[in-house]
């Protein structure tokens, strides 16, 4: 996922000032390598996306989104898959957003490096690096077996919540910290209580960044496959409740690609749907971050 947001504000450096010296061997070699790399990468990725479009675009239609999968997913649509995905996402957000926001508020408030804050930060760093399949193992052992939730949307959503938590907390803490200290002071000087200050001033001021963090978390959750196979399962039926097993979009792609002969077309079509969703979310993130930075500039 696009965890990083590269410099949105260019430093105003005049890049044309950097030039190669004509005829110098090294300059030429490096230039050739850089251009070749850029060209090859662009070509390979465009080829990849084009092939997905070529294989999958024919299947895409409104009915693809609104019909239930038939014949192991070779035919029909992905409606139940979309609903399962949404439910998994809903469980994931319902668990991770309150927890993440509260943790972010606390971490952003601790100006001094207390042992508690250091420990929480460090363990979140590790959590961010844990492979998704390990989350799958943990989710299976903890939610499915130990807590007896079985293969269910609930288990999958909660496992994803653990995964999305570090990225949520990190971006949300950044967003909250970016609200200038003067707002806290002004509010305190006006005799406003801490809760009201946070609810009416700090969190709204940070809302752009908070939403961006939320969207990043959603993106990560949507892209996840390995952690879901052993927690939410791969039943492609319409889930009736969060206690049912449900197949997420990414798991559907995997299953069609690996386990269903003749499933490639629908796999590619599903992948296109997933990509479109993710790219919409991505551009939403950039808008939000851009706006948020823009507003910060008014402050400072």
């Amino acid at each position, binding site marked *: 996922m696009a965890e990083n947001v590269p410099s949105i504000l260019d430093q105003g450096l005049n890049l044309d000032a950097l030039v190669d010296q004509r005829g110098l061997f090294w300059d030429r070699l490096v230039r050739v390598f850089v251009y070749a790399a850029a060209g090859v990468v662009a070509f390979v990725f465009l080829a990849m996306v084009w092939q997905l479009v070529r294989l999958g675009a024919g299947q895409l239609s409104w009915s693809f989104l609104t019909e239930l999968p038939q014949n192991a997913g070779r035919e029909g649509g992905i409606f139940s898959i979309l609903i399962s995905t949404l439910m998994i996402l809903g469980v994931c957000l319902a668990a991770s957003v309150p927890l993440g926001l509260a943790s972010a508020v606390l971490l952003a408030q601790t100006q001094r490096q207390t042992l508690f804050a250091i420990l929480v930060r460090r363990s979140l760093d590790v959590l961010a690096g844990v492979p998704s399949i390990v989350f799958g193992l943990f989710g299976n052992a903890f939610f499915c077996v130990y807590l007896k939730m079985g293969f269910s949307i609930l288990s999958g959503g909660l496992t994803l919540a653990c995964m999305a938590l570090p990225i949520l907390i990190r971006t949300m803490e950044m967003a909250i910290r970016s609200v200038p200290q003067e707002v806290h002071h002004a509010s305190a000087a006006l*005799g406003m209580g801490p809760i009201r200050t946070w609810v009416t001033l700090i969190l709204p001021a940070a809302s752009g960044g908070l939403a961006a963090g939320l969207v990043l978390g959603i993106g990560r959750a949507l892209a996840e496959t390995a952690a879901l196979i052993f927690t939410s399962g791969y039943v492609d039926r319409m889930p009736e409740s969060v206690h049912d097993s449900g197949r997420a979009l990414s798991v559907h792609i995997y299953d069609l690609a690996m386990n269903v002969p003749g499933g490639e077309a629908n796999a590619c079509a599903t992948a296109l749907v997933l990509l479109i969703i993710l790219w919409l979310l991505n551009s939403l993130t950039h808008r939000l971050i851009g706006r948020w930075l823009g507003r910060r500039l008014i402050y400072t």
Partner: protein
Amino acid sequence: MNPITSQTTSVSSPSLPLTCMSNPAACILQPASMTVTDLSVFYGDHQALDKVSMEFSAGLVTALIGPSGCGKTSLLTCLNRLVQMVPTSRVTGQCFMDEFDVMSPTTDIISLRRQVGMIFQKPNPFALSISRNIELPLISQGIKRHRRHEIVEEVLRDVGLWDEVKDRLHRSALTLSGGQQQRLCIARALALKPRVLLMDEPCSALDPIAAGRVEELIRKLRSCYTLVVVTHNMAQAQRIADHVGVFWASDEGRGGQLIETGPCEQIFEQPRHKLTAAYVQGRQG
């Protein structure tokens, strides 16, 4: 019954006159005097203020002057206990508002801060609309909407901003000019009907014309509020102050000390301390 805690109810009472300024005789809440005794402020190991004792008389303007880094702002933030927002800060000594102990751990600081307003060096309106900026603290006091709208108009008239902004009350406060923003911040503080108003170099970030208007406003506020103004501008201090306190950083690294205090004319015309004389004249000449 402690007036610090009873404040909330009296402000929200509808019988309260809209403003002091239009009719000073109608002030229910008299400006309060504040006294500090042996006040020292530490930030971690660093001492910022050393055993300051002085009085801020009710209804008068006290100016605090002195070079940068001698603890004037620290003193100011003790008066409404904003100083405790710095996590490493530590305050010793006493501070009273009339006869009530500001530093006592049982003081309701929310109520205290509503009675002791503060204006910052840099205008700091919230990134909200103009009217919302004034209303927000009122909402937390539970004042009804129509009453809030009345207060918004009153205080904006008091600071002379009403005619400039009455057509765009719902536009962002950040669209105002620096001087307008500062007057909005003053209006926001006045809306709480404070008894004391602290001002930390309120004009230093403004252009001369805007600064002039704020200064004029300060003179207007005199007698309705107890005003404590930190300023680097000698001429301004002379124009607005009744009393002046001169601060100087001590040599032993023990933070700022109060070296002289007295009526405005005395400080500027017959300074007793030689540092005061040098500082006042140096800046004047």
